[in-house]
């Protein structure tokens, strides 16, 4: 039940390890990665800003709802702030559950809700250095 908003790179191996348990039959992990293209813009990196106190509270509320709705066993959510380079993970959601249906549903539920509710914003920094907020 870990939630972290952090400047450091995401260590997916460690995140997945944190949710594993012999009671689980399924682990589903979503990683959001910085893509080369944002529409027509060729991106060199993204910059993420958060309203940290509210973002942590928001993620906790979403994750708690996923636990009660899908009966998952454990979760870890990490979201980076600051510069995130091309190809790196900006966000990870890893979920363990007895069975795969719940694990998939809960993982998708959590990332979908984070994307619409959690107060984090990003801007593209394109290959020429031009910065554009994506909102």
């Amino acid at each position, binding site marked *: 039940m870990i939630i972290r908003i952090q400047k450091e790179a995401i260590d997916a191996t460690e995140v997945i390890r944190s949710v594993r348990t012999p009671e689980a039959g399924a682990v589903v992990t979503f990683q*959001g990665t910085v893509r080369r293209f944002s529409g027509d813009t060729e991106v060199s990196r993204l910059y*993420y*800003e*958060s*309203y940290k*106190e*509210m*973002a942590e*509270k928001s993620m906790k509320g979403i994750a708690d709802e996923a636990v009660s709705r899908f009966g998952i066993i454990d979760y870890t959510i990490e*979201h980076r702030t600051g510069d995130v380079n091309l190809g790196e993970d*900006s*966000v990870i959601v890893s979920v363990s559950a007895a069975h795969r249906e719940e694990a998939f549903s809960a993982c998708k539920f959590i*990332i979908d809700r*984070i*994307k*619409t*509710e*959690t*107060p*984090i*914003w*990003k*801007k593209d920094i394109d290959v020429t250095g031009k910065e554009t*907020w*994506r*909102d």
Partner: protein
Amino acid sequence: MKLKIQVRFFGSVKDDAGTESLILELPEGSRISDLKEVLMKEKPSIWAGRRQIFFALNQNYITGDRELKDNDEMAVFPMVSGG
């Protein structure tokens, strides 16, 4: 007595506001709608060209109007785009 309200701006709204935060002093009994009116006068740029702007009071999204308390924290930001 006056209410001190901390207003914080995020994302592109912060750029348009030209500041991360400001303290507004409002008469006791002021409501969220009163705070918004003051902001519209002092920082009209944060509304310019935006379809939607979001407000959160003490880290919760606001639905409806409400009386403010001293030391409340009001956040103002654009559509979220994390992930």
